[in-house]
């Protein structure tokens, strides 16, 4: 092992700098390292004290340094932001990492009314710090792994030793160890079963939620370079819980949770139920309601099912567009959505106003849940109910309900039942 391999590397990585003073080579990536640290703590002592051999070099006070014996370590340290000091055939690495991440800021994806505002960042150490700040216990254990044959992403598995189920920890531990992947983006798809539409995990950026879940005995997985932290296992009822519930009066929160459950059922069932009632089981509606519906459908050329599908697809396109477009364009999007597609479609006689109400109420209801995985699985079930309702009427809605509940009951969240109330 000598300096030549690094010099060769320099041709393909122009940001790799090699500085030579008194036959000491100092090698670092200027994009990863803090140049002030290198000046103050490496270059200055070497020049001032006129250091030229190894025994003198290791007397320089470094915070975090280690000797390097093989090529693999050399590259790992170099790419992790260490500065390598080479004297003759000896290599040592000292940490001069430049923090390449955003500072702790407000949670942007999960809005809450009450509670702390801080959120996880892309920095692995920061994230563990944010949790340690909340749980000052020696029982908080961190297992560290490196996942990804190319990315070498640091993954931390956190659990409370005295609360957590050891079998579960072992299960997750083997799962993480068995991950065979080049580049790790997010760990949820690698350890959770993919065939379930409802999520058996929570991805969150709120440290208070993570700490709360740890206290309940759940496992938390922090991935480097990802501000979303994974909580496993989670259950069906967790969909209806939000961390800011704990900062509020519990009687009021009970009502809020009931409303969430109503909204959940509304968003799944309403479009299918509306079509079932108006095309198959008209006798179940009150007469005046039926007359109003009938009046609004007058002149609409399509069957109700096609009408609902058109409107639903339009809405999903608008939603997807709204999440992708930059904030500045967002307001013009909503004008197009609300006015052009809503009002004009009704006036053109393509869609009945009541159908807009039905699709809108069901879509708005699904936005009570800030987890996108929940919103998307609601979308799938909405479509199932819509198809069942439009082909077989109320009978189909009952079949759908049975299907829905059997599905929910048959999901396994790791080794637990999905309908478990609490861990």
């Amino acid at each position: 092992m000598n300096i030549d391999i690094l010099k060769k590397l320099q041709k393909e990585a122009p940001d790799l700098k090699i500085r030579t003073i008194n036959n000491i080579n100092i090698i670092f990536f200027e994009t990863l390292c803090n140049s002030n640290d290198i000046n103050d703590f490496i270059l200055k002592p070497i020049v001032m004290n006129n250091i030229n051999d190894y025994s003198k070099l290791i007397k320089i006070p470094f915070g975090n340094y280690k000797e390097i014996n093989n090529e693999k370590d050399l590259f790992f340290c170099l790419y992790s932001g260490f500065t390598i000091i080479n004297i003759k055939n000896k290599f040592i690495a000292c940490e001069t990492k430049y923090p390449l991440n955003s500072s702790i800021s407000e949670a942007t994806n999960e809005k809450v009314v009450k509670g702390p505002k801080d959120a996880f960042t892309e920095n692995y150490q920061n994230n563990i710090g944010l949790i340690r700040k909340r749980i000052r216990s020696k029982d908080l254990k961190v297992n560290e792994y490196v996942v990804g044959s190319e990315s070498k992403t640091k993954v931390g598995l956190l659990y409370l030793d005295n609360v957590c189920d050891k079998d579960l920890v072992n299960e997750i531990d083997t799962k993480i160890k068995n991950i065979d992947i080049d580049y790790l983006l997010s760990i949820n798809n690698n350890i959770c079963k993919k065939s379930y539409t409802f999520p058996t995990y929570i991805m969150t950026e709120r440290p208070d939620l993570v700490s709360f879940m740890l206290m309940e005995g759940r496992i938390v997985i922090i991935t480097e370079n990802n501000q979303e932290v994974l909580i496993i296992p989670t259950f069906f009822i967790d969909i209806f819980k939000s961390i800011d519930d704990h900062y509020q009066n519990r009687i009021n929160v009970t009502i809020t949770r009931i409303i969430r459950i109503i909204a959940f059922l509304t968003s799944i069932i309403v479009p299918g139920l509306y079509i079932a009632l108006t095309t198959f089981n008209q006798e179940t509606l009150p007469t005046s309601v039926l007359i109003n519906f009938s009046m609004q459908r007058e002149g609409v050329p399509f069957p109700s099912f096609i009408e609902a599908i058109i409107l639903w697809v339009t809405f999903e396109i608008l939603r997807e567009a709204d999440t992708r477009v930059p904030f500045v364009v967002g307001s013009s999007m909503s004008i197009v959505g609300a006015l052009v597609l809503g009002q004009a479609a009704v006036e053109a006689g393509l869609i009945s106003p009541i159908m807009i109400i039905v699709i809108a109420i069901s879509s708005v209801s699904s936005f009570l849940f800030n987890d996108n995985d929940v919103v998307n699985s609601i979308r799938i079930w909405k479509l199932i109910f819509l198809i069942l309702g439009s082909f077989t009427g109320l009978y189909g809605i009952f079949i759908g309900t049975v299907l829905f509940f059997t599905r929910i009951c048959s999901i396994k969240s790791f080794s637990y039942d999905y309908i478990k109330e609490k861990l």
Partner: protein
Amino acid sequence: MKKILIIILIIFLTGCYNYKELNKIGIVSSISIDKEDNKYIVGAQVMNIKNEDTDSSKVIVYTEEGNTIEEALRNMTNKADKKLFGGHLSKLVISEEVAKDSIIDVIDLFQRLPEIKTEFNITISKNIKAVDVIKVMTSGGTIPADFVKNEIDSAYLDSALTYSSKLDEFVSFYLKDYIDPVVSVIEVENFNDEGTSLDNTKTTDPDTKIVLSNIGITSNGKLERYLNEEETIGYNLVRNNINELIVPIKCGDNYASISIIKSETKYDVNKNKIKIDINSNGNLNEYNCNKDINEDTIKELESKTEDKLKEYIDKVLKVQDSSKSEFLGLKRLIYLEYPDYNNEEYKLYINTNVNISRKGELDNSIKGEKNE
């Protein structure tokens, strides 16, 4: 894969049975039944639903004849542009003639069809063809048929002047022993062609009106006779159907009126003796008598009200005595207690008890207050 296949089969094997779009169905709100030359003449009042506020009538009446009611309804498809849908039928009007022949024959269809609610009103059209009743244009509400339904409900609940007879109750009373159902009776005041046009709804005093005319009693599924106002109140008192009732009381030359707001009828059956206890609570709502209101006058009013209620009941009992119909269901009370009862004579004791709990702000009539 098997599961998915089963689910797909469940959906598509039904072949969209019973599928009908909302704008393709004609909602039938009322049906009328007359008879001519041994053939039923059936009229269907179908809602004419329009998106815009047009001058057109809210309902269209189709009439057709047939040997059965369904045949007549079938023949209507020649005239109607939409499939007739009976799920929202709110009243059935049967002409006097048909009702005297047999009500039960007529309603079989409505009891049998699954889509029809069994909660519509059964009414008899008195002195007029049934089809003319459903042709009358009434004001108010988006649903013209609801006019009669609301009329019956308010008359029944607020003043006990009629009884709201629904299909399922009618059939179940007919099938039970020792009790016969009753029906509401409708009359039309001043029926003419203008009454069927929109003009009838444009004035404050429509020329042609639908008027309720108390109830008719049936025996063996046939209309037997009509009851008048007082007899109807008596019927509702005995059958424990009172929700609210206004009782006028004579005092000297003037009148007072008591409004009964709560009334409960209790039966006590002992062998062949039936004791009917009526406990009522009432308010003094109108008072034009000369005497001051004090405990004595209140007591007097109470006893007079009790007598009046007894009078109502006596009148209806007289009808019961002279009729074959068991519309009061008194024999059924004995039958329920003693199942081996076989149509023997029974004795009836009536006891009424009225309690006036509120008399209003004035201690005297307004006239009397001034004279003091």
